[in-house]
């Protein structure tokens, strides 16, 4: 039992480190989905300024 838990833990650690080396997770929401949120922000800015 102990061995299985250790194995699973090690497996998990290796998975998580693998995920980390693949792509650093940063706060880059503006760049997600092909930078579509840049267009959204630009559009909202125009609408807010015009309606103001």
């Amino acid at each position, binding site marked *: 039992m102990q061995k299985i838990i250790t194995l699973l833990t090690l497996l998990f650690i290796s998975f998580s480190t693998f995920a980390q080396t693949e792509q650093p997770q940063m706060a880059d929401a503006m*760049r997600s989905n092909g930078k579509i949120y840049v267009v959204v922000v*630009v559009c909202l800015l125009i609408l807010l300024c015009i309606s103001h």
Partner: protein
Amino acid sequence: MHKYWWKILAVVLLIYTIIGGFLMDVPRLFILNESIRNLYFHVCMWFAMMILFGVSVVYSIKYLRNQDYRNDIYASSYAGTGLFFGLLGYTTGAIWANYTWVTDQGQSLGSILKEPKLLGAGIAILIYCAYFVLRGSFTDIDKRARVTAVYNIFAFAMLFPTIWIIPRLVGSLHPGAPGSDSGNPALNFKDIDARLRMVFYPAVIGWTLLGVWITTLKMRIALLKEKELL
């Protein structure tokens, strides 16, 4: 109906711009990615600005020809809306450049600061800000109308060299200039993509009509304020 059909047209075109602009197919390019859709918003601000400034200078010339005070009100209203659209174009351009030039193209702050297109657009906007400073500095209405009408012609003469010609001559990061390597075909009218054109031209007309609509409201307020003069 015969008087306000263009307002309906403006609303329809803008709805088409936003829906088509977000959902229709666009060319797949590196660095730009989906932000190429800003063509329908950022670029249209500048086009609307140029058209509104053009209308403004026409009314200034009309004022100088017949000294009708109404034309002065029209000219200043159009210039005001044009300046508003210019500022919107500048701000939206700053957001766009932040996510395409600054980090993804590896441009330093220094190369952004000496970017001829930004400097030229900044100069053009400041020239038009000076138009309103000049308007505010007169107490004599006739003198104000005459001097600012002349200044408006000067400002319009400076507009196209600063935002189009000089960036073309010296090269710029902005698409459309020689030396630009951002790989954006959108502003180069020789090879603008047909899919972009489908939304882009209606968008220019729609945003310009919206600008005219805002201007007519401003003109009507100004005419009411100056009722005893006219």
